[in-house]
């Protein structure tokens, strides 16, 4: 199974995401923001970082990259897409996911290992996860906001995939750490599963589950 990772100018975690794909047993394919060709991949990861320097708003400019045009079309056709951190911001700016990510409530950049409660396993990227995981969170603009109606709908429809546990690191409304679209193929998470795939360099290997989830989903499809 081929999983593409899009590199934007300013992406930081694209190599880590590729590595996570390989460790989970998939084939990682490097995709370039300026190229609309998705090279026959079965799923796409939008990695963390500061695409286009976070100019205007985080993720706002990345939305117009040629690669994103193809990703949006593919996502609407059902292809699994995971946005991590800046990738989550790009998914919101692209209107593939509702709401927006704003400046952390306390203004500090947060970088710590974070406990998450997995609230929905009915998505392409969370089916293989346990009820609780610990993965790093590191963001400056990670506070999830949406209007009350949208928040209610997300919770009622089981589209909140993860909640922060043991302290909300950025002031996200209702402690939401990640959400999915209605179909469950598009998922955005603020914390970084790709940084928890090896015992040596992370708090554990809980992050691998996101990538094994999508590989299993693809095999079953």
């Amino acid at each position, binding site marked *: 199974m081929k999983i593409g990772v899009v590199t934007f100018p300013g992406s930081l975690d694209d190599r880590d995401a590729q590595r996570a794909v390989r460790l989970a047993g998939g084939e990682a394919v490097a995709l370039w923001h300026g190229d609309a060709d998705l090279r026959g991949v079965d799923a796409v990861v939008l990695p963390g970082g500061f695409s286009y320097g976070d100019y*205007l708003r985080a993720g706002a400019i990345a939305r117009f990259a040629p690669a994103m045009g193809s990703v949006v079309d593919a996502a609407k056709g059902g292809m699994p897409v995971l946005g991590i951190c800046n990738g989550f911001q790009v998914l919101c700016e692209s209107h593939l996911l509702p709401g927006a990510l704003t400046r952390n409530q306390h203004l500090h950049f947060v970088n710590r290992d974070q406990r998450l409660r997995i609230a929905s396993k009915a998505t392409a990227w969370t089916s293989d996860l346990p009820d609780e995981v610990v993965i790093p969170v590191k963001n400056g603009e990670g506070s999830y906001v949406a209007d009350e109606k949208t928040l209610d709908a997300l919770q009622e429809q089981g589209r909140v995939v993860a909640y922060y546990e043991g302290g909300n690191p950025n002031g996200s409304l209702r402690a939401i750490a990640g959400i999915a679209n209605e179909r469950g193929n598009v998922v955005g998470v603020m914390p970084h599963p790709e940084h928890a795939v090896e015992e040596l360099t992370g708090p554990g290997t809980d992050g691998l589950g996101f990538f094994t989830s999508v590989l299993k989903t693809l095999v079953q499809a």
Partner: protein
Amino acid sequence: MPVHKVVVDILLKPEILDPQGQAVANALPSLGFAAPVSVRIGKHAEVEVDAAGPDEALEQVAKMAEVLLANPVIEDFSVRLA
């Protein structure tokens, strides 16, 4: 066509927390200013466009603001001629 300068002011919606504004509000008393009731911080953009008239210029820039300059999920904007 003449060039028109249009100003776009973008501000977080009132119900969206503005931690930047709060930080500034909290900093002002330490500099000897009376504590402000509130501070909200936004963006100011000046866009010059070729347009037949001021109304057309405003319309063009309002569209730009709606699609890119502002995120209507969290921000309000206003346009005016400079």
